[in-house]
């Protein structure tokens, strides 16, 4: 009996049945400890630092689309209070000026959008305003690209196409130094 048993043990293979359990344990560990990081956001190119303030007094006022956000998160667009839901349409109208109005931009290439906020403005509001302004340009680029090339604008398009579109509607968004009325103490 004993002899037979020992021979059995010799010929036995290592039991791989628990391998699955070990792997499951590792799997569950990774599932719990990790978060699939979603790295998305609004990409912005900041202007290089310069000591003196940019001079925009030389611009014609019809070419400037001034957006102000105060510490109460209210919007003032070209001197009028505006709701954020209107901002995208108004910006597009200003840039393209389809009806050739006297008070909107002469050409898309001359249009300048200035954004000024307060140090007390909520970041959430700031991002949504920035988002709307960017969306206005994105939609205009999409429309023009569809007209010219039959596809929507994207970063994968040939450089020449992208350049021709950005030459016609360049995105000029200048951010002024914020006011300081409502910063939290």
């Amino acid at each position: 009996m004993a002899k037979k048993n020992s021979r059995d043990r010799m010929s036995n293979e290592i039991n791989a049945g628990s391998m699955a359990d070990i792997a499951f344990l590792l799997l569950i560990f990774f599932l719990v400890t990790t978060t699939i990081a979603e790295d998305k956001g609004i990409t912005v190119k900041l202007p290089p630092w310069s000591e003196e303030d940019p001079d925009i007094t030389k611009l014609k006022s019809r070419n400037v689309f001034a957006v102000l956000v105060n510490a109460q998160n209210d919007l003032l667009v070209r001197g009028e209070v505006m709701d954020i839901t209107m901002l995208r349409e108004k910006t597009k109208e200003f840039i393209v000026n389809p009806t050739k109005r006297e008070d909107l931009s002469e050409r898309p290439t001359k249009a300048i959008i200035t954004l000024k906020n307060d140090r007390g403005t909520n970041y959430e509001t700031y991002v949504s305003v920035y988002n709307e302004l960017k969306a206005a340009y994105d939609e205009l680029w999409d429309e023009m690209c569809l007209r010219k090339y039959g596809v929507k604008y994207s970063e994968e398009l040939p450089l020449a196409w992208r350049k021709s579109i950005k030459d016609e509607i360049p995105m000029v968004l200048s951010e002024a130094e914020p006011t300081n009325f409502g910063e939290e103490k």
Partner: protein
Amino acid sequence: MSKFSKGKKKPQPAISTASLPDIVFMLLFFFMVVTKLRDSELMVKVATPFATQLTKLEDKSLVNYLYIGRPVEKYKATYGTKPRLQLSDKFANINEIPIFLERFRVKIPEAQRTKITTSLRVDGQVTMGIVQDVKTALRKANQLKINYSAKKRPE
């Protein structure tokens, strides 16, 4: 032998579980590859705002993160409730940003240094004052490519 087994039906073989570890390992490797272990514990509360015009950050090795938000419950007693900046794993002042950026920059091959993006992970309920200071510091440090981290707005 055949005499005994003649009348009996052959028993159904059990489903082999030998390949189960392989399947599980496959899942395991998948999760190990797609996930990124959070390298720093967040000491500030960061709930990024919603937006629609999002770009995906492609190369994660070229991204550094700045966190701005109010200290979490645990640190409120020591650090107060005003928005604070967190660099890697500790609270920091605005004037530490250039050193932080430089430390990151030296690890990147020279040819790729212009592609470094700074991801600003900022809580939606923070006021712009501190964000503006950080932006000014970034501009002075010549780190101009930034990304306001945001979530996709649900339709």
